[in-house]
């Protein structure tokens, strides 16, 4: 990428979350900054998705602190919440629109260009079917299309909920390379997963296992 991404840091202190009157997470502390990836691990139902949603600013925080901070000032006035993109387990795909139309919509919403759309479809391995309706896609292909949203969204912070679900091992590698490339560009990734991602093992990947300290 030509432009240097704005950099952010995140510090979470003693976070407590309550949803549906159930205490789902308590005393969570973590920190991550641009150029780093944070992998949230843990069994199903431990609250990975809720933590991601809290970091995205969707949830009411019962106690504690979530602090996003811009570490390098740049000319635009965006806050962290305007500079992130969240890929949930839902695909957010309209089946009656073609693959290109689907991605073009997200590009328009998030500041991508038309060229980005073609590139993203190529990279997701969906380039040959760009004009097909999304109706025709398999589950794995839908997941790839929803992840391709990241490539057309010019957002430095990625929040990914189970990015490899419904994907084969080839897909896992693709996701890992997406994250690696994003980190190379100075992005920030927080991903919840219950599988190991085949990423280049290095210092910039942090892992937190939820529900172990109890």
């Amino acid at each position: 990428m030509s432009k240097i991404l704005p950099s952010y840091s995140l510090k979470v202190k003693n976070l407590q979350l309550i949803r549906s009157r159930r205490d789902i997470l308590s005393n969570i502390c973590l920190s991550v900054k641009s150029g780093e990836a944070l992998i949230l691990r843990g069994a199903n139902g431990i609250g990975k998705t809720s933590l991601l949603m809290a970091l995205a600013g969707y949830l009411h925080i019962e106690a504690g602190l979530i602090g996003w901070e811009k570490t390098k000032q740049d000319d635009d006035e965006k806050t962290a919440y305007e500079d992130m993109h969240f890929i949930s387990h839902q695909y957010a795909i309209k089946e009656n629109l073609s693959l290109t139309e689907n991605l073009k919509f997200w590009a328009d919403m998030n500041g991508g260009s038309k060229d980005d759309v073609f590139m993203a479809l190529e990279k997701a391995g969906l380039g040959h079917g760009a004009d097909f309706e999304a109706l025709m896609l398999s589950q794995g292909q839908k997941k790839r299309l929803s992840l391709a949203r990241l490539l057309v969204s010019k957002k430095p912070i990625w929040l990914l909920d189970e990015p490899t679900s419904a994907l084969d091992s080839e897909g896992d590698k693709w996701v890992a390379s997406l994250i690696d490339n994003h980190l190379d560009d100075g992005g920030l990734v927080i991903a919840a997963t219950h599988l190991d991602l085949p990423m280049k093992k290095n210092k910039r990947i942090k892992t937190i296992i939820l529900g172990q300290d109890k």
Partner: protein
Amino acid sequence: MSMKPFNAILIRDIKLASRSFGDVLTLVLFFIMIGVIIPFAIGPNKMLLASIAPGIIWMAAFLSSLLAIDRFFRADFEDGSLLAMRHANISLSAIAFAKLIALWVITILPLIIATPILAMMLFMDFEILIRTILSLLAGTPALIAFGGIGAAITVSLKRGGLIAPVLILPISIPILIFGISSIKANAGIGVESAAMLFLIAISLLAMVFAPFAIALALRLDQE
């Protein structure tokens, strides 16, 4: 703020409605059928029908739009689109505003286009038809705005169905009152234009404030 995301929502929603045209057609059919069953209920008296035709058309439009409420945000909520839009380069209230405009185009505009068919069957004067269409144009944005609030509040309910119309109907009564009075009033001069002004005022205020209420409700839906 650039208009790109705003237009993208408008274009996408209208495109989606045109791809699944059956939904639009069903609503228009419902609208016409309501108008058509009234003569069966009260008899085919030409004079009587002509005199209550504006009321019938407003009722048909009112009921049709209530029927459509539940669909307003449901697809976007259930497939995760609303969640993914949360961090777009556009605020959630602006998204709600764009969606209200798109909803007006895909639910109300087809009904207004179909109005002459009903007018013909109910022996309406041409002048009254024009006034009815004008009053629908002035009042239906408020109907959509209120409907949007009802839809946003009930979108997380699996069985939303009937509840949103029941919530929205009472607060929509002023729209119906001013809507019909702006067409034909039998008391006093200037009543029609006063009603028309009230109607336009309600529509403008509703379209300005509803997006904030909708955005608030949609945020709460995802908590």
